[in-house]
């Protein structure tokens, strides 16, 4: 008999409640791109323009929506360019509808904290100390989310998400830990920042084991923002003033540092409903009762369900859960299989080493043989176009766009978009690749500069040579890769919204000025340019290196295997062979060392 009792109580303790199910559901819905955890790639669909209410890093491989806190910092950083009305509106909407109900019900980080707290250890109860510490999150909000981000955005035009960079454990846990196993090359990037954030993550995790929702109570700036709305949120825990006898059982049983139910610290979890003997507490959405206290009907509550209404309540609950499950199934299907963005990402995934080289060679051969006439026509067209563009400094984007249009026919056939080639050189390269593949014996190229000639295959790996390309730069000049033979060439992939990218640009500029005659530097902005022109962004900096924006079909990014992780640096030696190709932040020492290696 006793054993049965013990077993049933254990079963009871393992049975997840409605709140836990909602937490799990929302965590799964936010991170529905499950294939990202295996492939090590993040989701790149348009739903990422939407912010979720809870704390969920958008660099997590599973994330299908944006993190509201990251979006707030991003908006504050770009205040100099445009006001972040969208994020402000989203936060206000979530705040007034849900308030801190978000923290208690639909925040994945809240779920993780609660699960960590379930590890059986002695627990630290709330006290005046924890109560005082709960004000810390407001200080963190002001210092790290607002002040530092805003100043660096305005003064330096540097997008610095200070909270994400220095504190956020969600980024380390969901993003870094999610991406590292599938991307061993990311190990090259790790340094002081990772060490610091890893230790911070451990400290916060440790605190959560011993102290209920430590991050949520003491650190979370998003909780601090939602707390401001908690007094007038629509969905939340409400107390029936007529029934309440001020016994304080609700406050005593609560794990958060509340003074009364529904104040700025209350996460509306509804735990207090279980201990309220007066059945005065319920979860409401306006006047509609979402969750009435158990046994409320016996007390004759207006809102509590009577026997007939409880039956219809169960029915409604089942219908809601049915719809929710259908939505989840659809989301899982969409974000893993059906979404065109996922298909595109799968199709453009880099092909491993040797196979890729062969493919590149074959593609080059095919293109040259079949489309040579089209290309000649294109070159003629481009040359005319270039003459027009040279007059306008910021004409690059249009030029690239028109290039893209010119190549539409080629791309439709599934062939790679080729940049401008000089036919002779292309044939030489083709012969070389054929030679590599053992297809055909070729004569050495007499016309090329023999001292810097390379027989390396086409590719982007170390030891290979990049496919040739020509781009129009912001200053009106033209960067032709083949012309850089004899110089150590640095190709830097960057973006205005990437802090490390913006930070390392002066290092490239210094290197260029130091070895002007011996170095060529091209900084290629991602084709995903925000509305403010990258040319405008760098116009005041006085850089001497060449800048361009990649075409909409990512021509240069494809050639150098540029991905969604910026910054990336590719270094070519005098013969045009790749000696370095990594997504990593550069230091002056590293650049110097690479230059010496490439000489």
């Amino acid at each position, binding site marked *: 008999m006793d054993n049965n009792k013990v077993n049933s109580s254990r079963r009871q303790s393992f049975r997840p409640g409605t709140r836990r199910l909602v937490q799990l559901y929302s965590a799964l819905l936010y991170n529905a791109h499950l294939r990202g955890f295996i492939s090590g790639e993040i989701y790149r669909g348009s739903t990422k323009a939407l912010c979720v209410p809870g704390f969920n890093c958008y660099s997590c491989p599973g994330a299908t929506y944006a993190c509201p806190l990251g979006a707030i910092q991003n908006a504050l950083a770009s205040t100099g360019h445009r006001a972040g009305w969208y994020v402000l*509106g989203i936060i206000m909407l979530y705040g007034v509808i849900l308030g801190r109900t978000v923290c208690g019900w639909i925040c994945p980080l809240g779920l993780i904290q609660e699960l960590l707290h379930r590890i059986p250890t002695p627990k630290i109860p709330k006290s005046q100390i924890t109560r005082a510490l709960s004000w810390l999150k407001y200080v963190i909000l002001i210092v790290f989310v607002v002040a530092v981000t805003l100043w660096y955005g305005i003064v330096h035009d540097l997008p610095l*998400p200070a909270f994400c960079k220095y504190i956020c454990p969600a980024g380390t846990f969901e993003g870094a830990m999610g991406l590292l196993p599938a991307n061993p090359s990311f190990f090259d990037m790790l340094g002081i920042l990772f060490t610091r954030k890893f230790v911070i993550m451990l400290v916060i995790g440790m605190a959560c084991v011993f102290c209920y929702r430590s991050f949520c109570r003491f650190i979370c700036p998003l909780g601090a923002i939602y707390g401001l709305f908690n007094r007038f949120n629509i969905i939340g825990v409400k107390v029936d003033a007529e029934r309440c006898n001020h016994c*304080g059982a609700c406050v005593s049983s609560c794990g958060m540092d509340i003074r009364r139910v529904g104040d700025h610290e209350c996460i509306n979890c509804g735990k207090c409903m279980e201990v309220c003997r007066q059945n005065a507490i319920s979860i409401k959405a306006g006047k509609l009762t979402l969750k009435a206290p158990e046994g409320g009907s016996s007390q004759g509550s207006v809102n509590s369900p009577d026997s007939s209404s409880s039956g219809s309540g169960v029915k409604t609950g089942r219908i809601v859960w049915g719809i929710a499950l259908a939505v989840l199934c659809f989301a899982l299907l969409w974000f893993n299989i059906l979404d065109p963005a996922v298909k595109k990402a799968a199709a453009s995934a880099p092909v491993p080493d040797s196979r890729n080289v062969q493919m590149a060679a074959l593609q080059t051969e095919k293109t040259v043989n079949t489309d040579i006439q089209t290309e000649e026509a294109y070159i003629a067209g481009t040359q005319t176009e270039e003459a027009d563009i040279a007059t306008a400094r910021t004409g690059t984007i249009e030029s690239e766009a028109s290039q893209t249009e010119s190549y539409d026919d080629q791309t439709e056939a599934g062939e790679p978009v080729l940049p401008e080639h000089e036919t002779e050189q292309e044939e030489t390269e083709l012969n070389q690749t054929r030679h590599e593949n053992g297809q055909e014996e070729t004569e050495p190229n007499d016309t090329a500069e023999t001292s810097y000639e390379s027989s390396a295959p086409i590719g982007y790996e170390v030891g290979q040579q990049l496919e040739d390309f020509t781009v129009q730069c912001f200053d009106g000049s033209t960067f032709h890769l083949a012309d850089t033979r004899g110089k150590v060439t640095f190709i830097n992939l960057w973006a205005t919204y990437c802090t490390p990218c913006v930070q390392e640009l002066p290092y490239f500029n210094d290197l260029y000025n130091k070895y002007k005659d011996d170095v060529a530097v091209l900084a290629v902005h991602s084709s995903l340019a925000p509305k403010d022109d990258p040319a405008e962004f760098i116009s005041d900096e006085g850089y001497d290196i060449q800048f361009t924006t990649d075409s909409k079909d990512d021509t240069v990014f494809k050639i150098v295997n540029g991905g969604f992780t910026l910054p990336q640096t590719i270094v070519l030696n005098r013969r045009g062979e790749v000696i370095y190709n990594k997504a990593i932040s550069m230091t002056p020492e590293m650049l110097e060392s690479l230059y010496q290696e490439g000489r």
Partner: protein
Amino acid sequence: MTRKKVYLIIQTVLCVLLFVMLSTAAIRIFREGSARRAEHPLESIYTVEAVAEQFKYIAPVLFASVGMAAAGLILGIRDEKENKGVRDIRSERDLISGRVTGQSMEVNAARAGQRHVRTGGWTAFGICMVPVIVYLLNVAHFQDENLENMFAALLRGTVPWVCAGIACLMIAGILEEKGIRREIEALKAQMKSERASADTSGDIGSKTGGLSGGTMTEGFSGGTMTEALAGSKKDKVSAAAKSAEDAGNRKMVILQSVVIAAAVFFIAAGIWNGSMHDVLIKAINICTECIGLG
């Protein structure tokens, strides 16, 4: 010492050990890697081999900790204090103060003391925040393009003041709690004296009733009258409270509607001015520094 206590101690030790080992491993890899990088700038600080090497030592503790936690969860072991909750001294005070009619001198003094402590605590917190705000408002502190220097300076310039401010709030909280305890004692004493006086007046009343005799009906009817009067008064009070609540609810609905309308307007403005596009661009690229990669 019970078995449960032993389990909790072992689990705590394992958790702390795991934390220390993981932190130490990360710092060790970083130090060794940095030393390598100082000689060869292109060397990686973290390598898969270095991580695997460290994991060899951590794995036993990690598995033991996970195993123990799983066993504890299955057996339903928990810290007993966890379910008890923390007695809220303010609620206790409110409960008692609802039972007394007036406020004695002692109660008033205790309340004034609490008010002073609270005001003092927040004033001290505010004073501590002044240097933080001054620091944050000074653009010169954010001129350094080396973010590591900026971060170190920011910590030096703000953390001591923030800690001092939080400490002031803690001290004020503890002192306030003491004041509340004093108030509760005073309230209890007052309640006792009120009860004693009520008992005395009750005795006198009953004695008078007994003496008058034959006044049962009068007394009864008189009682009904009083009850009826009290009832109508109560109704009036509850009606007033209800109307005030309704007015409050109306105001709340208006406020909510205004905020929702403003939010929708801001979202539309954001879509129009391109800030939604900014969110998309940031979200579809890996923010390496946000996730701590570098």
